């Protein structure tokens, strides 16, 4: 019996990679009711609905074992391409958020942070420009 069992096991071992593949849950067609994209629209709603998770209300940043930089009065925002690149591609602890946002959402939130929290960079970035940077 033991010998037979091992024969079965040996046979199954040939088929197991396929079994394991099919057993892994395929991405469900609707991973959650919102489809995996941030639902908010408009710069302020996006900042308060997503960005302040790390950069904090008021964009003051936070310090623990590591830090989240303040976006308030931040000279690195002078050139719009910098925050656009960081949002889309990530940087160090900052994850790449490009896939979660539409072009318009990225443009809106970049325009928002560059004109709020003590920042006054009034040149706008457009959704069309974001699309080209993807």
């Amino acid at each position, binding site marked *: 019996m033991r010998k*037979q*069992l091992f*024969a*079965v*096991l040996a*046979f*199954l*071992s040939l*088929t*197991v990679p396929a*079994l*394991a593949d099919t*057993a*892994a*849950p*395929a991405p*469900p*067609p*609707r*991973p*959650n*009711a*919102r489809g*995996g*994209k*941030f*639902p908010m629209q408009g710069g302020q709603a996006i900042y*308060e*609905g*997503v*960005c*302040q*998770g*790390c950069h*904090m*209300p008021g964009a003051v940043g*936070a*310090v*623990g*074992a*590591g*830090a*989240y930089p303040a976006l308030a009065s931040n000279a690195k925002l002078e050139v719009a391409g910098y925050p656009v690149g960081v949002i889309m591609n*990530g940087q*160090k*602890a*900052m*994850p*790449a*958020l490009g896939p*979660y946002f539409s072009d318009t959402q990225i443009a809106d939130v970049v325009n928002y942070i560059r004109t709020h929290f003590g920042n006054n960079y009034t040149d706008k970035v457009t959704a069309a420009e974001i699309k080209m940077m993807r």
Partner: protein
Amino acid sequence: MTDQTPAPSRRSLLSMIGVVAGSAAMYHAMTELGYAEGSTFTGPIKLSQPPPGTSVLILGAGVAGMVAALELRDAGYKVQLLEYNGRPGGRNWSLYGGDTYTELGGFSQTVGFDPGQYINPGPWRLPYHHQGILHYVNRLGVALEPFTQVNFNAYVHYTDAFGGKPKRYREVQADMHGHVAELLAKSTKQGALNKAVTKQDREILLAALKNWGALNANYEYAKGLESSNRRGYAVDPGGGLNSVPVPSEPMAMSDLLKSSLWAAIGAGCNYEMQSSIFQPKGGMGMIGKAFGKELGPLIQYNSKVIDIHQDEKGVTATYIDSRTGGEKRTATADWCVCTIPASVLSQIPMNVGDPMKAAINQLPYQAALKVGLQMKRRFWEQDDKIYGGHTYTNQPNSIIGYPMWDYFSKGKGVLLGAYVFGEPAFVAAAKPPEERIRDAVEYGSKIHPQYKREFECGVAVAWHRVPFTLGCAGAWTDAGRAEHYDNLCALDGRIILAGEHASRIPAWQEGAVTSALDAITRLHKRVMSA
């Protein structure tokens, strides 16, 4: 599948598979017998005695750091650990009533749970094949109890399926398997599979499909005792008079396919979700506590590392008090095992080579959320007959986890009200903790209306706001691994990294253990060759 195998033996093998009822059971048996690979853990590590006085500085007293410390100490190294938190364990952590947790931004929560209640904000499962962490659990005398991943009587719920009414997991699985088996049986009988299956095997396949899908004598998945034996009855059989079972009505295949509920039934098939799974009695944090007790004064708590410098003589870490700041202090050793998460380490000046630096800098940490909800009574047990396991939903809370201890207790219970990655986890982190808790109660009440009346208090941990990690686990991409993983793990001068981020079992404690053992093995080899 080829015809190269001699027909008789193949036939007998297939028959036996039929006898033991399905591939899932066989795959499980295979892993039990060691046919499928576990982690790289092969048994307790044995390091030879190093030159007297050789010292190692370990940064971080999480699972990886404490495994490294324990083994290096036992081998004869002089060991010192620096830990940011005021407790051992790192992400191995449980929150109990009376605990206060302050996240980044200063949002503070005092846990209102009753004695004996807790949640594990971080890891919560110990799969049977994670033999590395299980080795230390046993060595440290931490008591385990079973953890249930799949509960066939828990729910699967999609807001827009079946009018938002949840289905039982067993109904979804039985109906999905049953309908697929019936379709395949039809195709087999109509000859559609003649090219793929030999004539001899067709009969066996039909028998196997009948067995697997609970088909009736006509190879149909239909309302009847066969299907109800899987999906449950409208009225269960019983004893004495009036005990005849009444079969239940399966969902129509088209309704089930459109519902997407089938997406949830693979959950327990994943290698890491298969039985048996364990949890420490009293919370996952018991492991960290036991390590901390074992290492005692070797760990210096509340130490925030702000600089790591190596030269030809040794490694020096500069640190300050993580609560009060204050004066800079230094710790020096011949070698360094650094388990600080990459999200934090990328911000600490450290003179390593460009390859390791690039590897650290490209690794962000995942968003994740867990919410614990204390309920006045265990209505999921008393009203819904759900004892442990999980309900799956497409709402932004994703999961409801039922407590896997104190079954049938007349007292309170703590539900895992949300366990979420990705988009909804980012969104939750941006909200104050009390709003995350309110959301979890709202979502849960769509499945268990009892929530609203029975909810008492909660705690919500959004991992991007966790001060000591800035995220839950290293978010590797395939491209990132291909380019940087080896460089992250390589010994750089006198510094070597370890942790779940330096493993191929990301976010699991087994990754931390096997990474630490691999790192100290290579470090020791380097020491002995000096």
